[in-house]
């Protein structure tokens, strides 16, 4: 019997297609990261490791003996640095701008459990993708904590909507998308002034909705198989939207704010045979037996604030403090001790800078660091169904790599560089918060720059100040230059100048101190620096 050989080129072609499917629009250079200690997560650590990144993928990875540096590669000497898979935050609300809240309806009719007034279909169909408003500051702050992949979910409502999985590779939404939609998100919350206005009502609504979806689907199925003599089914947009999740095992994330929510979610998942995930669950250790027996995938939030219902929280300040600082941070450690796997997420945390801090707290409370790492790499990748191309440092996977100055969850460690989809991002320190100032530098100024090249007079600097922001222009014989990124913090002044000299633009950075009618400091540029002093030109009285 002849075995047809699949032509090699068809194979390669399909691989290329597959690869192109996950390639972002942009293509960065080839990188060779050398001399670093690699923690692939899929295997043991590699000393003196080399990672080759090309076309957004990890081309090869291993010891420097095994992996040769290709000619087209830009070599990055990562001596003293550690390489990890980019961290995955499997449930967050970054990048979305929430729609303004609709005023609640008052004086609802006495109609029954059929949700007629509210447009529930719109709730289910809402996607995080349509709400995305990526911002550079968010991208930077995520990179700063080593996060290269986020699941973004809408936050509000019983049916919050559907989430999207993003690779944090820039400021445009579409190139970021890894998977859309990922799951339907359900909150155990209530409506205001409309049904259901109580948690018991929400539970009844959920149960009835799943029942209705099953009935709707069976009616349609029956109708499709033999429609003669049967009243045709009505079209219900809500049940249409809900059915894939209710009946076809599309994932549902239940946001569990407290231990009773975990129980509520588990009951719904079991009764209606849903493909459910428990998320939030920062009290999960208190219902560990249930979690163990039901084996529902678990994502645990790094938000250690105990829920308002917690008995730890309503018996006085001392107990509350202990709960926040000792008991709740031990959630992950306790779950791990019981052999339960979970992903760690930022759900509920306001600042991304708290994410790493809280992982450190969780580790201090007993979670082994390797488990913490897994909980933010390979486990979320598996839970979200993207483990084939994300979550570990392996050849052929998407090049999401982070380079850190030390062991990743060490308090002193800083993330230095981040690769997402093979694109390199340098991690900068966060902008310092501006101190309030009594100075107002608005007005005209005369400045003198003195440096190795000699002295130069700048006849007019015009400055406008709004709050702590400084902007303006510099006019000189060489033209008018823009003053940008200016901040006055207390009496510390800094700004940038884009100086265009003979068709070439150079960036100058000023940093110094200011007083009511004068300021001075250092102005630096590539290759050197000079001193700048400025005095205010008093207003002429006409």
């Amino acid at each position, binding site marked *: 019997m002849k075995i047809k050989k699949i032509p090699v080129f068809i194979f390669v072609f399909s691989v290329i297609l597959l690869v192109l499917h996950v390639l972002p629009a942009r293509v960065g250079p080839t990188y060779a990261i050398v001399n670093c200690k690699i923690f692939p997560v899929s295997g043991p650590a590699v000393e003196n490791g080399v990672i080759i990144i090309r076309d957004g993928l990890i081309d090869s990875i291993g010891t420097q003996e095994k992996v040769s540096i290709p000619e087209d590669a830009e070599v990055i000497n990562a001596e003293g640095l550690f390489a990890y898979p980019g961290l995955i935050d499997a449930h967050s609300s970054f990048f979305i701008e929430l729609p303004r809240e609709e005023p609640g309806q008052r004086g609802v009719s006495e109609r029954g459990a059929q949700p007629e007034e509210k447009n529930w279909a719109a709730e289910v169909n809402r996607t995080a993708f349509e709400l995305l408003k990526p911002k550079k500051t968010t991208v930077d702050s995520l990179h700063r904590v080593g996060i290269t992949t986020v699941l973004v979910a809408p936050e509000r409502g019983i049916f919050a909507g559907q989430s999207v999985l993003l690779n944090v590779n820039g400021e445009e939404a579409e190139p970021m998308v890894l998977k859309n939609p990922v799951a339907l998100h359900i909150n155990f919350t209530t409506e205001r002034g409309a049904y259901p206005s109580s948690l*018991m009502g929400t539970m009844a609504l959920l149960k009835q909705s799943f029942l209705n979806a099953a009935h709707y689907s069976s009616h349609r199925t029956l109708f499709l*198989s033999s429609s003669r003599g049967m009243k045709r089914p009505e079209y219900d947009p809500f049940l249409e939207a809900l059915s894939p999740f209710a009946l076809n095992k599309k994932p549902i994330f239940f946001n569990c704010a407290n231990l009773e929510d975990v129980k509520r979610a588990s009951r719904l998942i079991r009764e209606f045979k849903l493909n459910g995930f428990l998320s939030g669950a920062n009290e999960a250790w208190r219902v560990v037996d249930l979690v163990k027996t039901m084996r529902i995938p678990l994502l645990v939030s790094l938000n250690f604030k105990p829920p308002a*219902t917690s008995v730890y929280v309503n018996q006085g300040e001392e107990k509350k403090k202990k709960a926040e600082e000792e008991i709740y941070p031990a959630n992950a450690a306790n779950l791990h001790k019981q052999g339960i796997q979970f992903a760690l997420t930022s759900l509920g945390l306001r600042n991304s800078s708290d994410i790493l801090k809280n992982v450190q707290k969780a580790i201090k409370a007993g979670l082994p660091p390797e488990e913490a790492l897994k909980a933010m790499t390979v486990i979320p990748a598996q839970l979200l169904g993207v483990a084939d191309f994300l979550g570990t440092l392996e050849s052929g996977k998407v090049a999401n790599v982070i380079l850190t100055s030390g062991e990743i969850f060490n308090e002193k460690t800083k993330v230095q560089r981040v690769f997402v989809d093979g694109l390199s991002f340098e991690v900068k320190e966060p902008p310092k918060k501006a101190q309030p100032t009594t100075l107002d530098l608005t007005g005209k100024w005369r400045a003198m720059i003195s440096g190795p090249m000699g002295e130069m007079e700048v006849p007019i600097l015009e400055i406008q100040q709004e709050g702590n922001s400084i902007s303006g222009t510099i006019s000189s014989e060489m033209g008018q230059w823009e003053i940008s990124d200016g901040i006055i913090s207390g009496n510390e002044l800094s700004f940038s100048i884009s100086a265009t000299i003979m068709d070439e633009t150079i960036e100058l950075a000023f940093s110094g101190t200011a007083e009511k009618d004068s300021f001075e400091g250092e102005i630096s540029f590539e290759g050197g620096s000079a001193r700048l002093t400025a005095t205010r030109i008093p207003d002429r009285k006409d």
Partner: protein
Amino acid sequence: MKRKLICLFVSLCLASLSGFSSAQDLLIKNGTILTVTKGTVSNGDVLVVGGIIKKIGRDIKAPSGIKVIDAAGKYVMPGVIDSHTHIALTGTNETANAITPEVVMRDVLNAEELSIYTALSGGVTMVHTMHGSGNPIGGENIVIKMKWGKTSEEMIVPQAYRTLKFALGENPKRANSPITGTPRFPQSRMGVNSIIRREFLKAKNYMEQWDRYLKAKKSKKAAKNLVPPRKDLQMEQLADMMRGKMLARCHTYRADETLEFIKLSKEFGFKIAAFEHISEAFKIAQELAEEGIGISIFLDNWAYKVEASEGIAYNAAFCTQQGVLVSINSDSGERIRRLFNDAAKSMKYGGLSEEEALKLVTINPAIQLGVEKITGSLEVGKHGDIAIFNEHPLSAYTLCEMTIIEGEIYFDRAQYLKEREEMEKKKKEPVKKKKGGKR
């Protein structure tokens, strides 16, 4: 083989001798045992093993290793049962709709609510926690034991009747709220009645539809594409009422609306477990006695609204004397710890005997909730649900010293006082340090 058996036998004997006892075993000694149903035993003992009362009498020998509670000079009675509260729930009313039988308290239990501990401090071992009275037809209630520190599941009493909350009068017709926007139907007692009737008629129709469908399905000539009716949680609840699987607990005040509801119950064949509050019960005591419907009331809380303005303190005693099964409830997370005080007032307002007064907060509510076989009095075979008082529970000077559920101590005043003492000591220490040390 024989050797193995002997070894096993010996080890078992040794185990029992060594006093292997669980947290649910204890022996209460030398107290005045107020059984409520089987008289009083002075200088009496109560033995609880595995959470069940094994013996009540004098000079019961303690199995070795068992926890012994010295009740000398104290009074031992069944744990107090509050058959109308809203504690341990996240939320009370689903107010957005007038008809909400689909909501169940089981879904919103909160075992961490401090009012559970407050109830224990007043000798309460079990409560019937309910949907509020904002709707003519409310949700399904639940009976839980006050097992503070345990999970909500462990608190549920599965033997209790299933009950559905109904409400008549001022609350469901929103008489005491300002009207904003379109007023919600119903706004009158006739509206309240009509809406309840409508729902039961709908439920009857629903049951009929299902019966027809099931019949049709069974028949050989069944169409292949027979569509079942939609399962409706609201209708299922009301259907269960008409099938006798769930009883009504109806909030009412006036005698007239109560009689109308009894008529409704007959119209649709459902049973009423008890009327709640019913200030004017004394006006229709004979009807209630004839119908065998109990009441669950305040002793003397009244005049807070018009329909409660003829609520007399003699209500409980008079109705009891007329043959109505009466229980006293609190409907409050504060009053719940004074139910034994309320019971005592029935002796003054109406002349009930001590035993009759105690029954108002023990066996009577147990009967109304369908759990009289397992609790509500101190009898061999029942759960060890016990409250220990330092004075007679019907004295104004009494306080609850210990509350026990199924043999486990859930409230211990001595322990509480010790903890307070330690806390007070700790509070004083840091101040001393500040004064002494240099910073």
